[in-house]
């Protein structure tokens, strides 16, 4: 390394006397008795009633292990020139059905791969298995979400040569996957018309983090009395940043828009 790394800011000159009394915005644990006694003694021994404390503004971001692995995945995917999508929804919202049809249609022009997570069985992996698209099944046992480490291992297990779009089908769960970055480029949240229109209001964190919300099974919306406009308004209230596509993997309604979205990702250099 020719350039010296910038040093952290040094301690402010001078003394501070607020080691024990500094303002906190929240209740804090007090110093332990031995250290408190030691500082009290130092305070009383000091003629000015001051005690030297070295204070540093460090501003260190805290990342958990998963965040570090997720950043590694993101770099790996970018380096390979592929776009990774993390598909999240309740169980039964239609993730696998949408991916089946997407692989059969869009996947014939643009090479796709799938990592699919469930607690048990490789049923979804079997359903998604296509000669033209590598698939890896992740079984999590009792874990209610995929994490970045599982994705790193599963991505190593398949051949990603030529793949432009990597679909990650998360475990069906609207709560825990919100907290686990997988290193994806796009987070896709599915809401089906067999669920309530108010689901975005009931499970806001996952919708808040969405880049794209797919309103699925719209072909049966009328039969179910599902009010699409109410659902769209609820999505917009929580996630105004998210693009919304209404589609049906059965009738094909809305799929051209979904494929156009994917094409836009795959075309990126």
């Amino acid at each position: 390394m020719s350039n010296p790394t910038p040093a952290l800011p040094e301690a402010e000159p001078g003394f501070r006397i607020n080691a024990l009394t500094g303002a906190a915005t929240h209740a804090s644990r007090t110093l332990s008795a031995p250290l408190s006694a030691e500082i009290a003694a130092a305070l009383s021994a000091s003629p000015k009633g001051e005690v030297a404390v070295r204070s540093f503004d460090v501003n260190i971001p805290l990342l958990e292990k998963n965040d570090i692995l997720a950043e590694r995945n993101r770099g790996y995917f970018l380096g390979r020139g592929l776009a990774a999508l993390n598909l999240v929804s309740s169980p039964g919202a239609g993730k696998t059905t949408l991916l089946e049809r997407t692989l059969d249609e869009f996947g014939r022009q643009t090479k796709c791969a799938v990592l699919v997570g469930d607690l048990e069985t490789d049923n979804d992996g079997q359903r998604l298995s296509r000669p033209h698209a590598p698939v890896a099944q992740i079984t999590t046992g009792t874990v209610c979400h995929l994490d970045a480490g599982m994705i790193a291992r599963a991505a190593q297990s398949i051949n990603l040569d030529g793949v432009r779009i990597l679909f990650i089908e998360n475990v069906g769960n609207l709560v825990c996957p919100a907290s686990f970055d997988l290193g994806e480029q796009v987070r896709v949240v599915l809401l089906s018309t067999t669920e309530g229109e108010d689901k975005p209001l009931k499970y806001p964190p996952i919708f808040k983090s969405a880049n794209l919300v797919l309103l699925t099974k719209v072909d049966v919306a009328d039969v179910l009395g599902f009010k699409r406009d109410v659902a769209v308004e609820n999505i917009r209230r929580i996630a105004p940043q998210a693009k919304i596509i209404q589609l049906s993997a059965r009738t094909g309604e809305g799929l051209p828009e979904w494929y156009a979205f994917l094409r836009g990702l795959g075309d990126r250099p």
Partner: protein
Amino acid sequence: MHEVGIMQSALDAIRDQAEKHHATRVTRIVLRIGALAGVDLEALRFAYEALSPGTVAQDAALEIEAVPARAHCVGCDREFGVERGFIFKCPTCGEYSGDIRTGRELGIARLEFP
């Protein structure tokens, strides 16, 4: 739900900082945590009580600086505070905002060594 993991990362970073400044103990730790960071402060304190014994941080006072959520309205070009929840609605024009300006902070703001 990952407060223990976050606190472990914090204690690792604090140990590194203490070594760097030739300190064997830490008197004060100030964490800066945004309202949208997804961290439960009680659980974080609990994790600190559980994990800090035996480390340079075991005798320190732990303070948490809570950062409120603020969003930016594109239409009005102004920032507004969000009291609670996940719906960021501009108080002036009523438009919803996805542009979060503060509230996602999660880090160590300040350390003091004796």
